[in-house]
């Protein structure tokens, strides 16, 4: 088998998996910090229970992010050594700063938060969850600034050094001032908040539908519905802004998302396009006129370049080759992400409207709400597949191709061993995690009040 394909499969698998858990961590930690702050301010026992219950689910999820994150840090060197050599001078800095500034803060203070209750003062205990939340958020910022460079390298941040044949950092502030990275950050954090909101909505709805702990879950549901709606709006704004940056920095990705073969002015938005099996030819399409111009540049008449024109231009610029991403993937992942994102906004808006009208505990649809938890996960994974596959064949846009980035010494056997190994262990992790999440989510807030489950034997059937 082809080592490049195996390396890509492995990176895709480990990264998508890691990103199934991390956005929830990024969002849920702020909810826990908020609940604990309310408890600190009011002394109200419900807020304390909310801190404990949602905190427990947060920790079960957090553990997976931690252990799968180590691979993320190491696999640039392991599988993409030529990438690391070519761009380490630039990408290394945000990654090193991420560990120094974010990981230490997050892990140390989370340790204090888990073990410190009763040992440190309530104020220090509260501060420790806030510091953990700030640490998590900073880690997202630094890694997304690194990703921002790979998507749209700011021209004034680096030079090509002909003596050693690599890129070198010349302006750190241009690197961290990369707006593309900041918009990714905005989009990702709001996505995390929305995902956490949907988790809270799903679990709360499960209990509300069964009329258990009504006060507790009503409050949780209300907080999540309102914040989920706000986060949905933020995701939308971030996504819309990203479209315009993309038109400027990655026109090919935009064209591939929209299945625009020929340059159009004004450009239409494809509601449904059927291509041939290679994903490179259009067979049939239904389009909304002007809409694409609006998405790309905020007015209804601008020009959006087509795939064919861009391909010709890139061949002139970079030499012969295929510069078109796998369109069937970019096209559909975008639609899944966008549709599910919109549905999430509409649903949370509906929830807020229902809350304002009266008693949500009587809603007949409550028992169906837990299923909605799939929406943010599918939207999130689709969004990342789109972002990363839409950049093909580039690993660093316009500068380094994926095929030139891979570690040249790895054999297909090496890669098969590691890929299969990761799949096996990650599946086992997912199994344990889902089992625990379900168990604690269903057991409810009273079980979570205990530090360890076996002091609540009635719920988990402890033997001792």
């Amino acid at each position, binding site marked *: 088998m082809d080592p490049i394909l195996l390396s890509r499969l492995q990176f895709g698998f480990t990264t998508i998996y890691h990103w199934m858990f991390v956005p929830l961590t990024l969002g849920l930690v702020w909810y826990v910090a908020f609940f604990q702050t309310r408890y600190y301010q009011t002394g109200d026992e419900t807020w304390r229970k909310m801190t404990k219950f949602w905190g427990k689910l947060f920790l079960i999820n957090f553990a997976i992010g931690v252990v799968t994150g180590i691979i993320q840090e190491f696999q640039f060197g392991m599988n993409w050594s030529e990438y*690391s050599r070519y761009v380490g*001078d630039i990408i*290394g800095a945000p990654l*090193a700063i991420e560990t120094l500034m974010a*990981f230490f803060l997050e892990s140390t203070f989370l*340790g*204090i938060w888990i073990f410190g209750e009763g040992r440190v003062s309530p104020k220090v205990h509260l501060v420790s969850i806030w510091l953990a939340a700030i640490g998590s958020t900073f880690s997202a910022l630094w890694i997304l600034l690194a990703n921002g460079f790979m998507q749209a390298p700011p021209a004034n941040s680096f030079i090509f050094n002909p003596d050693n044949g690599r890129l070198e950092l010349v302006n750190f502030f241009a690197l961290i001032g990369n707006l593309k990275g900041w918009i990714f950050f905005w989009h990702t954090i709001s996505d995390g908040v929305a995902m956490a909101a949907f988790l809270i909505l799903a679990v709360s709805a499960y209990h509300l539908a069964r009329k258990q702990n009504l006060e507790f879950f009503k409050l949780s549901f209300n907080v999540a519905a309102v914040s989920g709606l706000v986060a949905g709006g933020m995701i939308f704004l971030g996504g819309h802004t990203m479209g315009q940056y993309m038109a400027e920095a990655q026109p090919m990705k935009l064209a591939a998302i929209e299945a625009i073969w020929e340059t159009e002015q004004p450009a239409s938005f494809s509601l449904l396009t059927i291509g041939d099996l290679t994903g490179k030819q259009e067979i049939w399409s239904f389009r909304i006129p002007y809409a694409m111009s609006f998405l790309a540049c905020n007015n209804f008449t601008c020009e959006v370049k087509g795939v064919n024109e861009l391909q010709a231009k890139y061949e002139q610029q970079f030499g012969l080759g295929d510069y078109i991403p796998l369109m069937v993937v970019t096209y559909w992942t975008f639609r899944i992400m966008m549709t599910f994102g919109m549905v999430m906004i509409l649903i949370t808006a509906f929830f807020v409207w229902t809350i304002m009208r009266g008693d949500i505990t009587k809603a007949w649809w409550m028992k169906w709400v837990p299923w909605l938890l799939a929406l943010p996960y599918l939207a999130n994974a689709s969004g990342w597949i789109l972002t990363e596959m839409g950049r093909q064949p580039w690993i660093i846009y316009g500068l380094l191709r994926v095929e030139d980035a891979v570690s040249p010494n790895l054999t297909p056997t090496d890669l098969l061993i590691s890929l299969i190994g990761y799949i096996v262990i990650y599946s086992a*992790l997912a199994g344990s995690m889902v089992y*625990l999440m379900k168990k604690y989510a269903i057991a409810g807030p009273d079980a979570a009040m205990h530090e360890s489950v076996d*002091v609540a034997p009635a719920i988990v059937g402890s033997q001792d």
Partner: protein
Amino acid sequence: MSYESLQILWFVLIAVLWIGFYFLEGFDFGVGMLLPFLGKKDEERRAIINTIGPVWDGNEVWLLTAGGATFAAFPHWYASMFSGFYLAMFLLLIGLIMRGISFEYRSKDAAPAWRQRFDWMIAIGSFISALLLGAIFANLARGVPINENMMFTGNLFTLFNPYGLLGGFTTVAVFLLHGANFLALKLEGELRERVNLFAKKLWLGASALYLILGGFTYASGFWARGIIDPGIVPISAVAALLVAGIFINKKMEGWAFILVALNIVLTQATFFSMTFPNLMLSTTDPAYSLTIYNASASQYALGVTSISALIFIPLILAYQGWTYYMFRQRISTDKKTLVY
């Protein structure tokens, strides 16, 4: 700062990160490996895990930071080592995952089979991680096949040569002893007595392996290839480990812990001074070796990361130190006080 002094600074910082990681995570690995053998009853095992519960994750970040700093400061070192030692790194990662998840999940379900499974995963994961770290460092000391393009040309079995394995098992033995000493300081009652007995036996094994490794390193001339004379550092490392035996016998737990910790710190310091200015010594041709000069990032990039390191490292040391102070009391097997 001149380019060369930045390169030296980063060599030293990365050495400090690895030394910090070995010192801190060393006892975590030891505690992990001892867990199923030392803890007979469930609450005993929980007490053992709780001794490192609040800190293990923060300790592991030292490894992540060493990795991130290597990437930023010496991209070629990061690229050659991580891709070259691919399967060893893969196994190390698997070990770390098994162990990390088990600490968090082990006590979240009461089924004995569940707990038993995670206890063994902690022990096996800790063992694999310690063994591979030791093998990796022994091979860095020994030198590995690297061609003119800074590319590793061996395979997994290249690392598992006798010297590499000796390094691996010595690391396992010293970490076991370090973990036992740490537990002696953190546990109480019967468990504390038991771990003191363990420490005596472990000291014998660790000292024997350590002396063989040291003798081999000296005899093979791996010693004399760098440009720095490590001076009394290596002999002090040996002395620290041997004297630790006296304190272990006298149950002077604090001193025993300090001396074995000192041994670990000085051994790593010896390694880094033996290597300098090489990062990865090539056995193919010494001219192909990666050094702090040919593997480093640009002067500007090193300057940027230096500033951030100088801001954050003192802060990290302060708050991590404070954590250990906060959780300084001994852990009992009283279930009400156990978190994990």
